């Protein structure tokens, strides 16, 4: 089986990249396709996860759906790939369905498991914003699979990768990028393993210092509930829930969030949930692994110093 893994690589192999390669490796011989200005040393590191062949297109420097889709389609045809693996991140969401449609191949969006059955290729995906799981079968010879970040565990599988430049004639970009407004260097929410989140219980945007301090000491990414994003206390990209970002970190700490069904939908893929709330009747406790009935203004700083003590004792 020939597998094409398409990923974006910056200065190191992110966990999402490792996950995509590990997934591809479970299906067959992996060719990795990426683009832009990436150093050979980083590209060769993909060999640690089982990549035998790296294709890099240096003529594309910007993320462009149309050019990248065409690049992937060309690689699939040239190397006769049966599986195309991408990460379900912003780029994957833009590119994967376009590739699938171009190839008239079945596309699984947001896979959370390795194939359940390879005779009739079937994979689990999250549906109803995490309130349920669907088993989706693909009926076409070529299969496009976008995997949800933090769904599988990366596995080392040492081999030696070779690098080939793959510069194709892809036509002219019809979307012009004018400007990139960076959101900071933190780990993006969908990829974060540790998340600290807060809601209206924090009473105002000026009180977010205690949330950020806990996040900093844990090395976590911050998030918030919908009302907090809607009234402008926090930026929209931090909103987790049914109409915001759906996440599945290892640890989700929620302070001052009651746990409405729409919020739970976005976070119930988390492995461990800690809920801090003054109201013992808050519905979120039913979905929690650990509950703390108490005032976030006291509990958060206390937890931060406990984490700091723990880290300095390690």
């Amino acid at each position, binding site marked *: 089986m020939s597998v094409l893994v398409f990923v974006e690589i910056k200065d190191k192999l992110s966990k999402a990249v490792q996950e995509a390669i590990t997934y591809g490796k479970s299906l067959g011989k992996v060719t990795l396709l990426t683009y832009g200005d990436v150093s050979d040393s980083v590209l060769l590191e993909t060999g640690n996860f089982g990549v035998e062949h790296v294709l890099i297109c240096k003529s594309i420097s910007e993320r462009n759906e149309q050019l990248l889709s065409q690049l992937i389609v060309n690689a699939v045809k040239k190397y006769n790939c049966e599986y195309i693996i991408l990460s379900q991140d912003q780029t994957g969401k833009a590119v994967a369905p376009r590739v699938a449609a171009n190839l008239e191949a079945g*596309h699984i969006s947001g896979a959370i498991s390795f194939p359940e059955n390879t005779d009739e290729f079937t994979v689990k995906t999250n549906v109803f914003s995490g309130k349920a799981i669907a*088993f*989706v079968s693909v009926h*076409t010879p070529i299969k496009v699979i976008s995997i949800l970040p933090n769904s599988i565990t990366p596995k080392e599988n040492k081999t030696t990768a070779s690098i080939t430049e793959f510069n194709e004639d892809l036509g002219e970009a*019809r979307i012009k990028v004018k400007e990139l*407004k960076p959101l900071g260097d933190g780990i993006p929410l969908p990829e974060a393993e540790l998340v600290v989140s807060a809601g209206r219980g924090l009473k105002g945007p000026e009180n977010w210092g205690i949330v950020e301090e806990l996040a900093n000491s844990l090395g976590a990414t911050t998030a918030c509930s919908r009302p907090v994003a809607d009234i402008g206390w926090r930026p929209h990209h931090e909103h987790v829930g049914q109409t*915001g970002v759906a996440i599945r970190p290892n640890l989700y700490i929620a302070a001052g969030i009651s746990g409405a069904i729409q919020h739970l939908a976005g976070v119930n893929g988390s492995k461990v949930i800690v809920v801090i709330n003054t109201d013992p009747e808050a519905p979120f406790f039913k979905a929690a*692994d650990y509950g*703390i009935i108490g005032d976030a203004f006291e509990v958060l700083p206390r937890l931060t110093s406990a984490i700091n003590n723990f880290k300095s004792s390690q």
Partner: protein
Amino acid sequence: MKILVCISKVPDTTSKINFVDDNSKFDENGVQYIVNPYDEWYALVRSLELVESNGGTVTTITVGNSSDDPTIRKALAIGANDAVRINAEPTDPYFVAKQIANYAENENYDIIMTGKETIDYNGSQIGSMVSAILDMPFVSLASKLDVEGSKAVLERDVQGGLEVVEVDFPFVLSASKGMAEQRIPNMRGIMAARTKPLKVIEPVDQKVLTSVIKFELPNPKTGCKYVDPENMDELVELLHNESKVI
């Protein structure tokens, strides 16, 4: 300008999700359907704002059977000029995209919009697939859209930030939070919606590429362990030794 907005019906966000027929079908019993929030709050409302200031029409398109008509009327009540329904079960994403693309092909739309995903299948696939079939540029996860003559300037969500991009008509976009504010239809809109045109069209043939064979509910939590708010060292110890997440 001519805008086509793809809308679909989804269970209300407060719906309890259950399955019937050996977990192969969504249990519609007692479920209230709404217009998918991303389609309605962002794509549809921003389209209306654009034609209000620039002139033009907004048409909605839905792939579904007559049970979709109430949500289509809701979109008309909010302000769309007319609606098209492709009379078919939306079997898989490619089937849906193919129907929309087939209808749009000869209609010369300037912009085709979808929500960034539906809140039932969360696929985020239709816009991208439609753009592929029609060979149009696709701007995904757009949170801002302004029109200048025959081109548009958009902000979209990319890895690590927001990107400002420029694109000529025609193009396809998927709309995310921030593009517009939700509009509540008024009585006049609701009355007018009853008589606005809703054209029903038969589908074109397309074989199914993927199918959902069954559903499953996630394992429920086994119960919450309460920790003394005075004793956060205990919580750290549990997170480290018991659940091993730090």
